[in-house]
C-alpha cells in the first residue's frame, strides 16, 4: 500500500528523476501501468511463468511473459535484440527501431537488460513476424535466452577510451559472430555469458557476472610522461603514491614505479590520466566462472589465463572458449553454470582436462593462495 494518500502511480510519476511510468503512459501502454499498480498495491508481482516463444529458425531470444490478471494485461512478450558493440547506435537505425516498435508493439523499450541486450517489451504474438522482418532490414538480430551462449557485452574500448588494452569492439563482433548459432539455439547445460572489458577497470563488470570474462591487460611497465606529471599539483601525485595498494611507487619530483611489484590495478593511471598510461605489450587476462545466485552462492570470476595476446582474428581466445564449452557440455549438470561445474569437479581436474587442448598450465597467478587443507589425491 502507498504510504501517502496518493496512488502509487501518481507518486512514481512525480519527482526530479525521470519517471518510467511517464514513459509507459507516453507510449500508451496502459496495461503495463495497471498491472504494475496492482503489483505494488498487492505487494506481489502479477507476472507468471511465460515460457519460450521464439521465431521460426530461432529457439531463443523472444521470451513469453504472461500475467495472472489477463483482464488487465494478458501478455507482454519480450523481444530481445542483439545490441551493437559498446552500445553505440546510429540515430537513423535507432529511430527506425523505435518506429517499428511503436507500430507493431507497445512502444516501450528497456535500455538495456542486465545482460546488455536491448529489450523490446510487449509484443502480441501475431505481430512478431512482421516486426522481425522490419527489424532485420535495419540489421537488428534477435538476442538470446535459455541455455545458450548469451549475447555478449563490451565496454566502449578504443572507440573513445585511451585505457583500452584490447580492441573490445572488434573482439565483440568477431566472437559474437563465431558463436551466433549457439546464441540462438540452446544446447548447453545452462546460460553462458561472455563479457569483454578493455582494461582492468572492468567497466562491464565482467569479473562479477561473466562465465567467461575477457579483461584487457598489459605485461610491461606503466608508461610515465614525467613532463605531463609536472602539470599535476605535487600533493595529488603524492596522494596517489600513498594510496597505491602495492607501495610500488616513489615520487620526489620524478615518479618511479617498481613494475615487478605492480599489479596494474589502474588506480594511479585513473587518477593521473594525462601522465600515466598502460604499457605497450598489451593483451588480455581471461577469467572464468562468475555468477550470482547458485547452488554454492555467488562467485566472482577467477583467473584462467594470466595473459594472452588479443589480436584479430582472436583464434586462441575462441579456441579456449570452445574447449571450455565442450568440457562443460560433457560434465555440466542441467542448470549448472560453468563456474559451478568447475567448483564441483575441481579446478585442478578442469585444468588437467582442458590442458592438452588449450596449452593452459596451472600457475600461481590463478590463485589467491595455495591450499591449506591436506586432502588431495595422487590418482591422476
Amino acid at each position: 500500500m502507498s504510504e501517502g494518500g496518493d496512488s502509487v502511480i501518481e507518486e512514481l510519476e512525480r519527482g526530479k528523476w525521470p519517471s518510467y511510468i511517464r514513459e509507459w503512459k507516453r507510449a500508451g501502454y496502459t496495461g503495463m501501468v495497471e498491472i504494475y499498480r496492482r503489483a505494488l498495491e498487492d505487494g506481489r508481482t502479477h507476472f507468471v511463468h511465460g515460457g519460450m516463444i521464439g521465431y521460426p529458425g530461432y529457439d531463443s531470444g523472444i521470451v513469453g511473459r504472461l500475467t495472472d490478471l489477463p483482464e488487465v494485461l494478458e501478455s507482454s512478450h519480450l523481444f530481445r535484440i542483439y545490441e551493437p558493440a559498446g552500445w553505440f547506435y546510429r540515430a537513423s537505425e535507432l529511430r527506425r527501431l523505435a518506429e517499428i516498435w511503436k507500430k507493431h508493439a507497445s512502444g516501450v523499450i528497456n535500455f538495456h537488460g542486465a545482460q546488455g541486450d536491448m529489450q523490446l517489451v510487449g509484443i502480441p504474438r501475431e505481430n512478431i513476424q512482421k516486426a522481425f522482418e522490419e527489424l532485420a532490414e535495419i540489421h537488428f538480430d534477435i538476442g538470446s535466452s535459455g541455455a545458450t551462449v548469451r549475447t555478449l557485452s563490451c565496454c566502449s574500448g578504443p572507440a573513445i577510451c585511451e585505457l583500452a588494452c584490447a580492441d573490445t569492439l572488434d573482439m565483440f563482433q568477431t566472437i559474437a559472430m563465431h558463436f551466433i548459432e549457439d546464441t540462438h539455439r540452446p544446447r548447453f547445460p545452462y546460460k553462458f555469458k561472455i563479457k569483454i572489458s578493455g582494461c582492468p577497470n572492468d567497466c562491464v563488470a565482467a569479473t562479477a557476472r561473466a562465465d567467461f570474462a575477457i579483461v584487457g591487460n598489459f605485461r610491461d611497465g606503466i608508461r610515465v610522461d614525467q613532463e605531463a606529471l609536472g602539470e599535476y599539483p605535487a600533493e595529488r601525485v603524492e596522494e596517489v603514491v600513498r594510496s597505491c595498494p602495492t607501495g610500488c611507487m616513489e615520487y620526489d619530483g620524478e615518479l618511479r614505479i617498481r613494475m615487478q611489484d605492480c599489479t596494474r590495478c589502474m588506480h594511479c593511471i585513473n587518477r593521473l590520466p594525462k601522465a600515466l598510461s598502460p604499457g605497450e605489450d598489451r593483451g588480455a587476462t581471461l577469467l572464468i566462472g562468475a555468477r550470482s545466485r547458485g547452488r554454492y552462492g555467488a562467485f566472482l570470476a577467477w583467473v584462467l589465463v594470466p595473459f594472452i595476446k588479443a589480436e584479430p582474428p582472436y583464434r586462441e581466445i575462441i579456441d579456449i572458449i570452445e574447449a571450455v564449452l565442450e568440457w562443460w557440455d560433457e560434465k555440466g549438470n542441467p542448470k549448472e553454470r560453468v563456474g559451478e561445474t568447475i567448483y564441483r569437479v575441481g579446478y585442478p581436474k578442469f585444468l588437467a582436462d582442458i590442458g592438452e587442448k588449450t596449452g593452459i598450465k596451472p600457475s600461481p597467478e590463478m590463485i589467491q593462495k595455495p591450499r591449506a587443507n591436506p586432502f588431495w589425491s595422487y590418482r591422476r
Partner: protein
Amino acid sequence: MMEMPLSFDELDFGPPHYRDMLPPVCRRNYGKWKYHEHVRGGIIRHVAESGEEAYSVRAGIPKYLSADTVIELCELAERYCEGYLKFTSRHNIEFIAGDRESAERLAGELERLGFPVGGTGRCLKAIIHCVAMSHCHMAAADSLSIAKALYEEFYEDFRNPEAFPERVKIAVSGCLNMCGATHASDIAVIGVHRRPPVVEDAVVEKVCSVPELVKSCPTYAIRPKRGNPRSVEIDEEKCVYCGICYSLCEGIRIHDPENDGVSLWVGGKASNTRAGPLFARLVVPYIKPEQPRWSTLVGTVRRILEVYRQNARRGERMGEWIERIGWERFFRLAEIEFSEKCIDDWIFSVETFRRGTNFKMP
C-alpha cells in the same frame, strides 16, 4: 502459426557492425585517444593523439523509454552529434559532441527534457536495477520503485562529480537472481523471501518435473511427496527461501506479500582498482517493503552513505574503507544493529570467521 519469412541462410546475421555505429570522431581516432578529463558533472573531455577533442555528455534515464522519447533523443543526436548516440555500461545515455559549446547546449537540452546530466566522477553512479514487478515473475520486491526512491533522495549526488570520497555504485535486484551484478556493488538492495514456498500439488503434477526440482534445491530440502511421487514436499527446516524451485515450477508458490522484503548489502566492487573485486556483504537482513517511497530503506542507505562520506579517505571505495576500519567499526559508525544473519553459515563460511584477536574493541 508463423511462416518462415527469412530463409535459413538469412538467419543469424548478428549484431550490427560496430563500424557503422561509431560517431565519425571515434572512427577517426580509434585506438588513438591520449587522455580524458572531467569538465563538470556529466561532461568528460577526451583528447586524441591528433589533438582532436570530443566531449561525452552523460545523462540518467529511467531504464524504460517510450518510442517517442527515443525519437526525441535521436533528434538531439542528429542536431549535435552528427547523428550518433550511445548507452553506457551503467545504462546512462551518452552523446559525443565535437566541442565544449555544443556539449553544454546539448546538456541544457537534455535537462529540459527531464534527463539529469551527471553520473561522472566521484558521484552516485547510475543505479543498476532489474525490471522486477513491471515484467518479471520472480520479483520478491520492486526494484524499479526502489531505484526511483534512491534517485530522488540522492539526486544531487548523481550530478555532483565530487559528491563522495570515491564513486558509489548501487544496484537493486528484485530477487536472489541478482540481475545486474548486485553482489559486486558498493551498496546492493536485494529482494528476499522469508518463508518456505507452498506446494500446489495439482500444478506440480501437471507441469513440473519432480527429478529436476529435487536436483535443483541447494539444500536438498525438496523430495518426492510421500504417497504422491508426482508432486514434491519441502523440508521447511532446510529451506533457505532462495526461489530456485519456483523459477523451474510455477506450482511452488514462493511469493508471500506478508513476509517478502529486501536485504541490504555493502562493500562490493567489480573493478580491479586497489583492493580488486570484492563481494558485497550483508548488513541488514530484512527491511519491510514500503513502496513507493521505501522510507526505512532509503533512510538506512542515507546513514551508510553519510558515514562513508565523512570518514573514508579520498579515493577509497566503500568496501576498501570498511576493510581498513574493520567491519566491527562500520556497524558501530553506521548505527546498524548486528544480526546473527550477517554471520555466514554456508559453504565458504569458515573463511569469514575472525581468526585470532586482531579486532577493534567496542
